[in-house]
């Protein structure tokens, strides 16, 4: 029997990811640069006043998620490829059980997404004069979105690391997983913007949570197979 627990191993992987990221800043730079560039481009080209008042809830929530999603993709897709590139994958494979690797990487992606959301969302609301009536509703949608997006990104990143490691493939594989998720996130955000009632975001929230939960459950079984060939 091994002496370490799944929890302690997962936290060790997470700690390693955070330490390495704080020193190299590869993912943070990619996410930050991509997020800020698209945000500024959108703010500059469209700004708050190019959109008709009645279209604002629809367009502003969609634009926000496009920015968030592409920034996330640029940083999160490398979480396993970097292990293959650095030849640490085999060392890690021999030392940690697969589930601990998945959990550690998942938590790391979740932290990156939370950092991205807390940087971009307030800036976006300010630059686009996006008035959100249900701030609590938006916070819940963002939190659920981070949890769900982290699970899809982590499993897709694991698959592409074994395939070839191209970011394009990440985008393609993500489509069936992420498209419905993005649609529900946009709907939830729109509902939160329109209404101060927390109940307004519930329909979208249910969808986000169930899809995220389903992907996470499948990943727990799929990941060990992907990780060990």
């Amino acid at each position, binding site marked *: 029997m*091994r*002496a*370490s*627990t799944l929890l*302690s*191993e997962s936290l*060790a*992987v997470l*700690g*390693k990811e955070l*330490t*390495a990221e704080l*020193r*190299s800043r590869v993912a943070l730079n990619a996410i930050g640069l991509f997020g800020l560039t698209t945000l500024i481009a959108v703010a500059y080209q469209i700004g708050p006043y190019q959109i008709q008042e009645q279209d604002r809830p629809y367009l502003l929530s969609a634009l926000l998620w496009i920015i968030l999603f592409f920034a996330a993709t640029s940083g999160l897709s490398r979480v396993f490829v970097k292990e293959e590139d*650095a*030849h*640490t994958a*085999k*060392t*890690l*494979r*021999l*030392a*940690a059980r697969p589930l*601990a690797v998945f959990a550690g990487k998942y938590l790391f992606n979740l932290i990156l997404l939370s950092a991205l959301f807390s940087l971009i969302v307030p800036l976006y609301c300010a630059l686009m004069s996006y008035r959100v009536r249900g701030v609590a509703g938006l916070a819940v949608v963002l939190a659920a979105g981070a949890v769900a997006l982290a699970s899809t990104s982590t499993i897709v990143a694991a698959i592409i690391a074994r395939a070839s490691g191209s970011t394009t493939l990440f985008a393609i594989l993500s489509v069936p997983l992420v498209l419905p998720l993005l649609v529900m996130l946009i709907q939830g955000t729109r509902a939160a913007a329109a209404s101060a009632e927390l109940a307004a975001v519930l329909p979208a929230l249910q969808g986000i949570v169930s899809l995220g939960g389903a992907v996470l459950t499948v990943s727990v079984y799929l990941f060990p197979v992907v990780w*060990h*060939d």
Partner: protein
Amino acid sequence: MEAISVEFTKVGKRFGARAVLAAVSGTLRPGEVLVVAGPNGAGKSTLLNILAGVLRPSRGGVAYRRGDEEVPRREWFENLGMASPDMAVYEELSAIENLRFFGRLRGHALADGALAELLETLGLPVREHHRAVGTYSSGMKQRVKLAQAALHAPAVLLLDEPSSNLDAAGHEAVAALVARFRARAAVAVATNDPREIAWGDARLDLAL
């Protein structure tokens, strides 16, 4: 750590149409060093990967045995230490941080003092322990990699070209490590270095 022997029977490996190993058999016995020799491309690294369980053989099989009892495959890795040219430790972390990390993963958390001692026996002086491995020379990285393999005192130790990039003192340090493990572990060394071939109690020659 209880002694484990590794038995491989008629192991064959093909990569596509290319046959690399054909019906290779042998045993790693605790208290013995098996040297795997052969020209470049003969399949030494391939065989070690199969023995480790990171590569599936196309034919034949590998069994880990503890006494009469077979060790289930999911427990192989925790009884195994390995260093090979296609493995690396984390460049962003220092030597000590790397060993702390792998120690935690293996549930074999040693005090920093013990980790430093292990690195020192492999010839990495204390003043180097706390800077990022990415700034090390290739020989220094090799020493950390070997420490990673030995850290949890595994019952099976697989070393692929363990002295690569090492100077004479480094070579001596690896010889001492192998001598220390020989006492209670099953050790395999893949090499073409005549000095390392001399460590072997048994020898397996692979041909092209």
